[in-house]
């Protein structure tokens, strides 16, 4: 019986694998095209300290990460507890770290720019 069940699961799994591969490929192609063209309207529009184009890249990357983790790494079949203990931990700590480091980097940039250090030699 157990073997039967896994065989059924398999047929849908192969289909899902190729679907996810198609999604990942399309996203990558879109990223590359945007990266080569760099549409002026997206580069010039700034949204929360970054150009809209960069935001699009980051969002697309997170979508890719979602598909890799959920479909390829079978996170969708794990228990809620395992999923949350991995995903929530990582998301919380990374957001925290990124927020702190980027804020600090921007502060140092301001010091270099407006402070007393001459940078033109």
């Amino acid at each position, binding site marked *: 019986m157990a073997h039967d069940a896994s065989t059924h699961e398999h047929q849908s*799994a192969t289909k899902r694998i190729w679907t996810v591969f198609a999604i990942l490929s399309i996203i990558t192609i879109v990223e590359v095209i945007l*990266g*080569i063209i760099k549409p002026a309207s997206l580069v010039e529009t700034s949204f929360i300290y970054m150009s809209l184009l960069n935001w699009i890249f980051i969002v697309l990357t997170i979508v890719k990460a979602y598909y890799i983790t959920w479909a*390829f*790494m079978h996170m969708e079949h794990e228990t809620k507890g395992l999923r949350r203990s991995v995903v929530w931990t990582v998301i919380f700590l990374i957001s925290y770290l990124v927020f702190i480091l980027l804020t600090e*980097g921007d502060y140092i940039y301001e010091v270099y720019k407006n402070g007393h250090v001459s940078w033109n*030699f």
Partner: protein
Amino acid sequence: MEATVVRTGTEGKTWGGGSKSPLKASYGKMMMWYFITSDALTFSAFLAAYGFSRYKFIDSWPIADEVFNHFPFMHGTDAPMYYVALMTFILIFSSVTMVLAVDAGHQMKKSKVTLYMFLTIIGGAIFLGSQAWEWKNFIKGEYGAVETNGGQIIQFVDAEGERVALEKVAKVLPGDRVEHESKNGLWYVTDDSALPTYSIDEVKEGFKESNYLVRTQMLDENGAKTILSREESLAMINDNAARVVEGANLTRNEYGPPLFADFFFFITGFHGFHVFTGVLINIIIFFNVIIGTYEKRKSYEMVEKVGLYWHFVDLVWVFVFTFFYLV
């Protein structure tokens, strides 16, 4: 005797050591997940540190499209992104073959697992080779640049704004150039162990006679590098030029701030090391599949566990690709 027995009330349940495993995952798989969690934090620390440096030099960071624009057999053409896009596809595809191997393992199909594992290993090897080629181009450099007294990198362009290589700028002067060795000079001077192709005087002299311009690292409002006028360029070269820089190492590189090359070597190197170990582990599991270890165990879970690691390597590359080449 009865009084000394501690009863927790969890006998037979999950946390009391019952038959059900915590989180309904086997020990190995759960630990692989937590290893991946910690490894993900290491990588994100690297990438966040890269972001820190980038924000610190937000108006003078190198433009990735100008640095990574090589493609095999297309020398001299400007091909930004194509090569890394290809590498990304190779890695995603090897991820697909890996997950197909895991899937075939669920159905206990040994020959299919063998085939897909083999394809995964090949994909990983091709990726590693591509990475090596990318490093070679990065280390060798293309145009060369000059470092100023303040440690800034300045590059040469012609009147149209196209990059000009050092060999076009420099004028060969007579006279011997001697490589400094520790035995006949200051033993503690370890800099400049290899002489650059041209001396700084040759570059200065050649620049005076040409009509080339200097391009600084500063980005203008359109995101392009600032090009100085001819007078400013001459002044910059005469007053500030300190040394010739060709290619990249951990101390200085011709693309921009030293940190740019440092992070490139560290992050892609650390990722490449993960790919390398991933390929090794895959090879071990591949041979285990062939000799029938998992057939005897009646479970291909080991393939699933190394699969997790392999997908993680792909996952990291997705982020490296975005933050190094796109953003």
